[in-house]
């Protein structure tokens, strides 16, 4: 079922799907599959699991498509569902989960965030990793969660700053500030490693 490249916006595609055009959803899948799989892959660190989870996320989104609020961006909704799904999967692995409860550095509300220990990369990932920049991944893994999640949303989910702000419920200025700090930390970590 190949999807045609579509000039419609995400929200227009959602409307067409709700009007009965199932192919519209195929276009949305085609549009987001790369970003979704890569974003989830950075969270669950397993290629097969990232694909399965992406599929599950898309199923969930399709089932609840009539509850999509068109005043928000589709991408915002999709990645919020994806992040929740990934956190559920990681929790189920029974890896170490430590609620930190530290207040956010720049005057955040101090909400508790899970610190998720990364699973060891699978054999396939290690082979694939030889072709990719493993040091970048290691540097990302050292970031505090509040910075890491924004880096993943921006550079793997390819969300715009405004979309990240909506997904995380943060002011746009906070997103810019945190991404600035995160990239400074990454830069330093990579400079130390090189």
């Amino acid at each position, binding site marked *: 079922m190949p999807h045609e490249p579509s000039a419609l916006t995400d929200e227009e595609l959602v409307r067409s799907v709700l009007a009965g055009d199932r192919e519209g959803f195929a276009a949305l899948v085609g549009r987001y*599959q790369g970003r979704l799989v890569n974003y989830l892959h950075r969270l669950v660190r397993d290629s097969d699991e990232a694909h399965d989870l992406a599929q599950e996320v898309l*199923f969930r989104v399709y089932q609840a498509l009539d509850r999509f609020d068109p005043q928000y961006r589709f991408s915002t909704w999709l990645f919020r569902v994806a992040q929740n799904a990934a956190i559920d999967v990681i929790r189920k692995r029974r890896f170490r989960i430590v609620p930190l409860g530290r207040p956010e550095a720049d005057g955040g509300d101090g909400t508790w965030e899970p610190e998720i220990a990364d699973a060891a990369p699978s054999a396939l990932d290690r082979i694939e990793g030889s072709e990719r920049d493993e040091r*970048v991944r290691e540097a990302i893994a050292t970031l505090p969660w509040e910075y890491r999640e924004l880096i993943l949303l921006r550079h793997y989910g390819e969300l715009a700053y405004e979309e990240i702000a909506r997904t995380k419920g943060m002011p746009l200025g906070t997103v810019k500030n945190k991404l*600035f700090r995160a990239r400074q930390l990454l830069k330093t970590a990579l400079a130390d490693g090189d």
Partner: protein
Amino acid sequence: MEHETYREWLDLAADGALPAADRELLGRHLAGCPECRAEAELLSGLVRRLAADRIPVRPGFTLEVMSALEPAPWEARTARAWRWPFALLVALGCAAAALYGSAAAGLDPAGHSWSALAALAGLLRAALVAGAGLAAATWSGVGAAIGDWLGRSPANWLAAGVLVVALNALAVRLVRRRAGASAPPPGRRR
């Protein structure tokens, strides 16, 4: 302008998120600031490395997703679900129009045939009124019969109550079974 502001702009510029007007200002600053130029190169390199760190999506992923999608509860409410009933209604309307048209074509406008048509319309209206009256009379008759039956014995009230509760329970069960059939199975994959 503060040097720190330029550093923040450098970060946004490397990420492609700096507005064009600010980019121009930043460009002018970079021309005279070797420290910021070095920082800009570092940041651009970082963003390039992040952009290159990708896994390929497995072939046929879209097809996989689309073929495994189960009907969503909302699909029954879409326009497509009403396509056939609507088409039937339109077809019936067309057939009625065709019949009416062929009947009207056989009439002689110069003669008194139009009055026959008006009489036919009056007859139809009378039939409708009579049908509605008959239905109303039937319902009131049924109501009177039930009232009469209930008045005969208190046991009849009990029997009627049991019947109403049983019918409601049956309706709830049918609705639940229908909802259960449309919900996706948990943890479904491929």
